[in-house]
């Protein structure tokens, strides 16, 4: 397996290196789909320039990276391209190893379930074989590294790539069972863009499952481990935040980074739902609706955790997808991260209802983004509604995609316990409905 992976890495690095050297790099780095005010490289450079001028980067409204990011790029600004390529490589590698671990885990559990006769007899064709699972980690790495979204994001030097690397490392450490590292990386991811906070629940569920601690609120062992993990997470978050304070000597970054994420003051168009909605919002409803929109990311965590408490890895996937749909400044880099997981759920393919429609919508939207942007901003022959319509459709497609995978996952679980070919009372073939 090492040889294909190495080959993949080499191809991916070559593509990126070629694009960095081409004239396309500048064009890509100005695309609103690829960079947002939160993670544009131009703004990182601006922040460093402000620091050189002796002005706090947070005194203006251009720079919204965290202080650790300044510190990182203070030293590596000349090697930024290499940093971003390495980050992509790390993400792919971490995802590769995580999925490998996960697959082993899945196979082991499946064996136990079969031995204890928990699966119904006619669902043999739903079972997963090592043969079909063999190439899945490689496919995941490939889906991440060769995804045009990731390549664009990397060539634009969007710091989204670094955030993805942190989240991928977090997943890797979680699946490897290292609670401490997982807590630290989760704190780092939260520190970077606040939303990964919701990944706390799946990580906790995974550890509980791994340690055979039942999720029972009356059991002290459950509380003990939860507090332990929460302490590791909150402790490292406090340490990182404190460290940022000591690096800059002020708390200015809190409103400038997290306030900026939550209050959405910059309405630069992006692929998300926020910008046009809040550009057109009536002033006295603004606070209400920004709460309503922000709550979407956090709202689904608890019900999803209850529904998927046996399947924390799928829960991670769901959470990442929800974050990338409902976050205030999404870019295609965020989309690329959860799309990398899709090969891991390739066994759900037979239960997907509208994957063809959704992939057509997503492909068409990706092609139409630059076209309609050009018509609006440069040609002046279209207006903002055109671009808005496409973002709307793109998000609609993403929601359908995620909901479809969720449906397929639940349905497969249902079939595993109740049998694949269900019969009605009169013996005819039955259809499954949600009731």
């Amino acid at each position: 397996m090492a040889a294909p992976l190495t080959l993949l890495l080499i191809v991916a690095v070559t593509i990126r290196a070629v694009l960095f050297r081409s004239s396309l790099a500048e064009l890509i780095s100005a695309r609103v789909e690829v960079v947002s005010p939160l993670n544009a490289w131009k703004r990182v450079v601006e922040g460093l320039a402000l620091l050189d001028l002796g002005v706090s980067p947070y005194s203006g409204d251009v720079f919204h990276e965290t202080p650790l990011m300044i510190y990182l790029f203070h030293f590596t600004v000349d090697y930024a391209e290499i940093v971003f390529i390495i980050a992509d490589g790390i993400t792919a590698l971490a995802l590769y190893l995580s999925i490998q671990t996960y697959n082993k885990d899945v196979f082991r559990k499946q064996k136990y379930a079969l031995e204890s006769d928990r699966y119904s007899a006619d669902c043999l064709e739903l079972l997963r074989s090592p043969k079909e699972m063999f190439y899945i980690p490689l496919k995941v790495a490939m889906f991440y590294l060769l995804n045009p979204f990731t390549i664009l994001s990397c060539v634009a030097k969007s710091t989204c790539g670094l955030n993805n690397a942190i989240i991928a490392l977090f997943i890797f450490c979680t699946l490897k069972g290292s609670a401490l590292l997982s807590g630290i990386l989760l704190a780092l991811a939260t520190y970077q863009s606040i939303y990964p906070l919701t990944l706390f629940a799946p990580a906790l569920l995974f550890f509980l499952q791994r340690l055979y601690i039942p999720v029972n609120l009356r059991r002290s062992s459950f509380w003990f481990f939860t507090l332990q993990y929460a302490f590791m997470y909150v402790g490292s978050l406090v340490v990182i935040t404190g460290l940022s304070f000591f690096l800059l000597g002020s708390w200015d970054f809190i409103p400038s980074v997290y306030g900026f994420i939550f209050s959405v003051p910059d309405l630069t168009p992006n692929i998300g739902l926020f910008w046009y909605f809040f550009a057109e919002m009536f002033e006295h409803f603004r606070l209400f609706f920004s709460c309503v929109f922000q709550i979407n990311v956090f709202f689904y965590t608890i019900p999803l955790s209850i529904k998927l408490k046996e399947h924390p890895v799928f829960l991670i996937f769901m959470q990442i997808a929800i974050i990338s749909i409902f976050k205030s400044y999404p870019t295609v880099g965020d989309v690329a991260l959860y799309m990398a997981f899709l090969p891991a759920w390739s066994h759900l393919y037979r239960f997907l209802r509208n994957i063809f429609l959704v992939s057509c919508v997503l492909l068409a939207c990706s092609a139409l983004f630059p076209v309609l942007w050009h018509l609006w901003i440069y040609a002046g022959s279209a207006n903002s509604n055109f671009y808005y319509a496409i973002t709307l459709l793109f998000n609609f497609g993403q929601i359908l995609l995620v909901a479809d995978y969720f449906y397929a996952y639940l349905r497969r679980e249902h079939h595993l316990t109740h049998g694949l070919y269900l019969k009605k009372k009169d013996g005819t073939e039955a259809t499954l409905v949600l009731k």
Partner: protein
Amino acid sequence: MAAHRCGLSLVCILIFSSLAHPSSCDTLEKANDNTAEKRSISEVNTDGSVAGEALNERQWQSTDAEVDRSDSTTHSEALTPAAARDEFQEELVIRPLHSGDIYASFQFRTLWDTDFLQEGQKVSHYRLFPKSLGQVLSKFSVRELHISFTQGFWRTMQWGQPFIPSPPGAELWVWFHDTVSDVDGNWKELTNVLSGIFCASLNFIDLTNTVQPSASFKPLGLGNATDHRFLRYATLPREIVCTENLTPWKKLLPCGSKAGLAVLMKSEKLFHSSFHSQAVHIRPICQDEQCSSKAWELRQTLNVVFDLHTSGQGKKEWSLFKMFSRTLTEACPLASSSKVYVDITDNPEGELFELSPATPLLGQAVVLGDRRTYSVYDLSRAETFGQLRSFNLLLRWKGDSGDMLRPLLHAERYVAGFGLQTGEIHTVIYNNHPYRAFPVLLMDSVPWYLQLYIHTLTVTSKSRDNKPSYIHYQPAKDRHRPHLLEMLIQLPPHSMTEVTVQFERALLKWTEYTPDPNHGFYVGSSVVSALVPSMVAMRTNFTQDQPLFSSFVPVKEESSYFVRVYTEPLLVNLPTPDFSMPYNVICLTCTVVAVGYGSFYNLLTRTFQVDEPSPPLSKRLANLIRRMRGVPLLT
């Protein structure tokens, strides 16, 4: 504002109605022309005999370059001791420009040796100083106040430097006294009060267009304040100046527009011009040379450039009557001095134009580094008005005026780039001095919705990188504060220096756009302040009027002079949302969110079940009857 605009339209209607009866004006002008001709003929008659003596008889009267330095003591004997506490001067400077336009600059100065800022002392007795301004000064603890309203753009390359520069639109800068604790609060209130006094939209000045320049705007009066926390500077480049602003401005004059030079200010003529700028400057100055006590100076200026080419049917001649549709009949009785100056520097021998009535009085002044010669008409003398009791200055061009010496410092600005996403501001500063380099301070205040990227700032002169020796940059805060960029740039001799900085255009909330959003947004002029080497020092052959012993080493005071140049304001387009869409957008976006919510809710709360179709209606009815009959049900 609406009320003002209504007033404006009313005034316009009145103007048009008066224009509808032009006959009376015409006859008046003809009568005046006749008298002027008669007078010039009589002068020609005497000219032959007196020509030789005229030159000798010319009295050289020295006036200072800056009138504020001119000593007020010379006039103090004329006034009673009780009235010596305040005095009023008025003057009009007319400069024929090389482009053929006429530049007329009114200056009214009220001087009052009282202190508004003294604790516990309430100034309540006002004589010449306008009470409305005096109360404002004392209430808001203003140390210095400069306000200007300008319509049109001063074309430095054609017209040279103005006496008092001002940017298009409204400009206001104020130094507060250093006892003020809440400067922003005072500033906010002050702008609202001034907005009322001058009938202007100064109330649109808020924190989003106010800056505190660190170096460009130093106090012009007494007091060595350097703490720019007490300075506020704001421009409204979109402000339109019209009669509604002129009327309250005229009311501040002691004589109003009833007597003196102010009778010339007919708004229909003043605003029928290429450039119109009115200003009020208030500052504390020294009362005497020892500076033992402080006096307040109120200086009201009005600068107009008339384009007499288009209105004069190609004839190159002008008179006071043609310009202002009025002649002067008397000085303001309250004025201690009242003079009209005509710049005749380019016309020492009378070969370029002819001025009538001729005056024996000549004045010389170093204005903006250049020694100028003026014909002076003293309105306080009865003989100025002649027998007709009316003074109508007439200038007739004889030849074509030569080339103007290019102004030493000149700046212009434009926006480069296409599309509505990004752009680049180019500021080009010219140093036309043949051999001297000098530093300039460039100040830019850019609204927050153009996000500047300071790392893209480049300064190049003579295609080489010219690193500014001082940069003060304050980045903007969205909806709170504009960008402020100040730089000290050394301009090499005879060079063009280009300053470029890139920006990104923001998409605003739909309520933040102006009523005509596709017209674009104005960005105020950038300000170039410099100490420019003087023309006097530049001249190497000191000839006519200078004795040899005085000319070897250039005089220090004249070697450089302060000048401020304003560039063009910019008009920048921003991307706009569709303003008719708020309901649609709210509905559509919420629908997508609801689709997400609905599908997740569905999957989270429901479980999979085998779909058992309910039996058809006939079967259900049959079963109902069977149940009543007590017969086994159908399956």
